[in-house]
């Protein structure tokens, strides 16, 4: 069996990569992909625990997370398209009109 710690380590690394990408990348869509990456890393952790503890709770939760991620992706991409139409740019640094 693959030890639980390996799964968790992988999940952590993926999550960290997602956070790093979220903070560093400039392209809005790339940032979105990093958000998805973070969510999926968490999914991995849930599954690993479910398998380790022999319970189905983790797997059920994963379903919830996937649904939420999908809905969020739909809405988020719609917003991005609207923003692109107004600003002609996908760089997150150009979306600064909410500053004081």
């Amino acid at each position, binding site marked *: 069996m693959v030890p639980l710690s390996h799964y968790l380590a992988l999940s952590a690394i993926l999550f960290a990569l997602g*956070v790093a990408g*979220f*903070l560093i990348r400039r392209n809005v869509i790339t940032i979105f992909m990093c958000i998805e990456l973070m969510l999926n890393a968490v999914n991995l952790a849930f599954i690993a625990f479910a398998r380790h503890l022999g319970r189905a709770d983790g797997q059920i939760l994963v379903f919830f997370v996937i649904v939420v991620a999908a809905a969020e992706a739909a809405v988020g991409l719609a917003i991005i398209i609207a923003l692109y139409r107004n600003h002609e740019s996908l760089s*997150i*640094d150009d*979306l*600064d*009109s*909410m*500053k*004081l």
Partner: protein
Amino acid sequence: MTMEVLLLLILLPPLAAAALNGVFGRRFSQAQVSWLGCGAAGLSMVSALAAAWTFSHLTPEPSAFVHRYFTWIEAGSLRADFALYYDRLTLVMTVTVTVVAFLIHLYARGYMEHEGGYYRFFSYLNLFLFMMLTLVTAANYPLLFVGWEGVGLCSYLLIGFYFRKRSAADAGKKAFIVTRTGDAGFTVGLALLFWTFGSLDFGDVSASLQALPAGQMEGTLTAIAILLFMGAVGKSAQIPLFVWLPDAMEGPTPVSALIHAATMVTAGVYLVARSSLLFAHAPLALEIVGGIGCLTALFAATIALTQNDLKRLLAYSTISQLGYMFVGCGVGVFAAGIFHLMTHAFFKSLLFLTAGSVMHALSGELDMQKMGGLRHKMGTTYGTFLIATLAISGIPGFSGFFSKDEILLGAFEAPLGKPWIFWLATLTAGLTAFYMFRALFLTFHGSSRLAPQAAQQVHESGRKMTAPFMVLAVFSVIAGYVNLPGAPWFVRYLEPVFGPAEGLLSSAAPAHSTEGHAGLLVMGMSLLVVAVGILLAYWFYLKTPELPRHLAERFRLAYRVLINKYYVDEIYNWLIVRPIRWGSDKILWRGLDAGAIDGMMVEGTASGAVSVGNVLRRMQSGYVRSYAAWILLGAVLWLGYVLWLS
């Protein structure tokens, strides 16, 4: 009619008339206002006379009739009700005040006929009458104080009646502020009085005082007496708070006659008289009263010697005569002081009314140097002015002689009488005769120094004004006969009121050994100085009219000091007014108000908020990635906190 009802009928009609005239007066005709105003004063007077009659016929005659109408203050152990107190002293005061007030109301109809604000004038005048009557009928010190402050208010309103005139408005303020200074002492005295006796009711206080052996608690009682006297000094224009009275002449002449001659200024004397037993337990305070009274009498008389403005001269004369009344109280002959209060009310108000008549005829001229020879054109005014002058100078047969003599006799032989008080008071009597006859001669005798058009317009005043003169003139003569040297009916009449106080004083310090001649000696001296005064006035102003000018040149310094009223106003201005204004400007206004409150508290909070905001707004950069970083930081911190807790 019962006493309770009569007392209300004395007080309430003026109040009601004041309210009606004040609120609706603008729509009334002058006749309606007059009827309301004079009618209320008349009703008051009739009720006062009826009350006097009723009280005198009560069997057995109580020492005082007291009636509580309703509870006013009830706070802890302090209880002050709207209660009225009527004894022989109250009888004298109410009758004097209402009679004089009624006559002056009648006079004012004629005097104020062509002035604006007729209804306002009568409203204020009635309100004043109500307040004054409250003052003299109050049964406790707080209610007396209500009347006290009320007359002060009305005085301010009436002095500044011609409010568009700067000097009149200033004079009103000056009167109020100066008397307020005295009232500060009065209030502290009231507090001390309550602290000592647990009550401010006249009955309670006098009962406690009567049960008190002589010499006990003298320090406290002296302090109370002096503090109360401070109020009297302000209200009755004694040294050092007299400066408002001459300026108060800015008000219409009926106001000067009623308030600043006959009634309000006598409130201080009434206060001392009403508290006679308290003062008797504190002989030091009485000596201060007598001393200040005597000095004020002399001081004011010297200023009156050189005044050219007729009303101002009469104002200084009032200050001087009030000093006499305080001398009477101060040496222990309280009844004599009240006697002089009564006679003075009659002849001084008459003097003011006739002065007003002259002023009216000369279209506002008051400078005696521009008068002269008026007796030919204004016979009635002249005759009544002459009678009043004879009264105030103390000519035998006229009222002032009897009352002044009683006081001088007291200064000579009463337990607290002192030689220096007697001599200075006698000297003042001589000065009084001199300056009054000077006024008479300059105004009515001699050759006319009137301006040409004034000379043409001079006319005797109408009957509305002269009728009150004549009544007052009669009183100025006969009012003195209630007390004659061999038959002191008036003094004996007031014995129940002042007996306890006078008894206490004479047991403490027996009267000076008097042969029966004391009375004659006093009378002789006063007649002597009066005669000298009149002769000097005649010589100065009729025989050789250039003489005053020569003397003024030779004694230039003395003359300048006198005509500038010893520069008292200027001294006060330098010592008191200017520092207060400087302090108000630099410290209170610039420092505290503009600096601390406006600057720090109002603007400071605003700019503080702005600065904090400026710092915080850097978080709202619109820069999404910084938001993301902050979110991450927050999440990490929170996670760490949760892990640390478990």
